[in-house]
């Protein structure tokens, strides 16, 4: 029974997938859309929960058993908790419920105008009695539509809104070079001092992404170049004819990637293109046809219940 139910569901849905692909009638398409846009999304959401559960269980077990490199499992679990917490309460760009703003230009809105302040205290002073401080001549700009802040409420400048604001200000101050100076001087209506734009920093998913994931991912991949060079120097040997052909082809394709080389050897570009267009294309087609036939055969075996490895182990 444990196997028959999933196999029956899989058989019905697989046949349905084929029918919906080739039959263009509206009721068929509507039902297919319902399955795909609703059911598949729900299944996908549950798959994420299942995956998270499995990940947490695996690393907890590793820590409990003090398995090899168990310390790294702590890094994984802490990162998981922090990212989830920030994502749930800090929002994608730090506009969630979590008070996560550690910098940024302090802005306040009153009667459709935006004012800039030196610090949070100034902002609070303004907010306590905006009518006495609000001077339209000292307003930075009209409240952008995208900010959509209710009257009298404070506006924090997110990275996205900062970009919008900068565009607005840039247009108002035609000829101003943004690249050199991020923003023109802004006068605080409270102290009358000049406020300058500061880069904002927030604990948000975007901040985690830009601050951790981008540099880590780039570093990991950049290290490949070093390993590749070392490996190529030590192991790429012309031991026989086949290795020789591979070596020469690799040289031509690599040199063809260098614009300067194609200037000194004009036919190199065409030769590289010929290698990619003719021998490469022929071999790739052969491989693709073989893979396609193999995938079709395996799919049929799964649909018909001959291949059951996807069900995993366990009792009938």
């Amino acid at each position, binding site marked *: 029974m444990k196997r028959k139910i999933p196999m029956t569901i899989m058989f019905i849905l697989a046949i349905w997938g084929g029918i919906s692909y080739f039959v263009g009638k509206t009721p068929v398409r509507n039902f297919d*859309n319902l399955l795909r846009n609703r059911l598949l999304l729900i299944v996908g959401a549950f798959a994420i929960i299942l995956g998270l559960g499995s990940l947490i269980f695996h690393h907890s077990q590793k820590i409990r058993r003090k398995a090899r490199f168990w310390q790294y499992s702590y890094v994984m679990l802490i990162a998981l908790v922090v990212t989830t917490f920030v994502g749930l309460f800090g929002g994608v760009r730090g506009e969630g419920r979590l008070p996560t703003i550690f910098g940024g230009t302090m802005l306040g809105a009153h009667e459709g105008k935006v004012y800039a302040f030196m610090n949070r205290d100034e902002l609070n002073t303004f907010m306590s009695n905006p009518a006495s401080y609000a001077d339209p001549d000292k307003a930075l700009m009209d409240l952008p539509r995208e900010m959509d802040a209710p009257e009298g409420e404070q506006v924090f400048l997110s990275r996205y809104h900062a970009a919008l604001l900068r565009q607005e200000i840039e247009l108002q101050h035609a000829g101003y070079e943004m690249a050199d100076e991020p923003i023109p001087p802004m006068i605080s209506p409270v102290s009358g001092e000049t406020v300058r734009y500061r880069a904002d920093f927030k604990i948000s998913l975007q901040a985690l992404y830009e601050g951790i994931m981008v540099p880590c991912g780039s570093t990991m991949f950049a290290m490949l*170049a070093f390993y590749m060079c070392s490996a190529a120097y030590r192991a790429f040997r012309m031991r026989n004819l086949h290795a020789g052909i591979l070596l020469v082809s690799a040289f031509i394709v690599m040199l063809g990637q260098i614009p300067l080389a194609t200037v000194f050897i004009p036919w190199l570009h065409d030769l590289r293109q010929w290698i*990619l267009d003719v021998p490469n294309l022929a071999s*790739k087609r052969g491989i693709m046809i073989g893979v396609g036939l193999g995938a079709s055969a395996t799919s049929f075996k799964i649909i018909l219940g001959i291949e059951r490895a996807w069900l995993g182990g366990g009792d009938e």
Partner: protein
Amino acid sequence: MQEEKTVWQKMMSVDRRIIYLMVAVVMIVPIIFPFDQPVRVAERTTGAMFQAIDNFPNENGVFLISADLNPQDQPELYPMLVSWIRHCFHRDIKVLVLCLFPASLGLAEQALNQVATEFNNRAARGVGRRVVYGEDFVFLGWTPPPIVPILGLGENIFDVFPRDFYGDDLRTMPIMVDNRIRNYRNMDMIGSLSASSTPITYIAFAQARFGIRVTAGITAVSAADFYPYIDSGQLTGMLEGMKGAAEYEQLIAEYFPHDDGRRMATEGMSSQSATHIAIIIMILIGNFCYFMQRRVENRRSV
């Protein structure tokens, strides 16, 4: 007594840290002191794509970009994304950007913001036109699993993305209303930017079923896999790695001389070219030492 190593053996087993140091120098120096290289555009790949986008109808042209790039692909794929957006903005083509994987969201948003700021800064100086979020471009965000947006966009975009990345209602946005964008039939082409086989998934599901044209931006290492699709006409051109991106930047510079945006791929080509040459020289030296050592061993055995 142990036989002393020959000079060839010593060279073949050189400390890997020396190789790493050499590679680092070869990579870093051209980044600090870049050298200009004339870029020759590959007509079947880069040229074909540029012409296809350039020939969209100016008023109602819509380009859907599936930006599936990760931080590790950034040097090759990010300049492609920036170039595509620049080209579309220059030609007044509407841009929809989506991601199939969450890891791509940050870079996709960064590229949109960068190019939008670039254009608006120029507009402030009286050069070119201004672009507005929600009118000229929209960031759709991410919906899992990938097959849902790929097939769902063929039927009704609002079922898959009822709101944009920032949570605003997509149905009411001017870009969607004015251009009557509802599904693939209202779009001119899909540009799939990925280091994996995602463009092939778009060909298999979006193009085969809904007939929309597909183009691709891919890493150089996976370019060979996509040539069958260029040959069959299923891919309308493609950009191959950093060189493809540099070619596209070259075309934008030729067609839109007032575009003063940073040409990241062209800058990176100096470092990439130097590293390629270094790898080739190292392989040649390694093989030379290998043959010399074999010669020494043959003489000894005789």
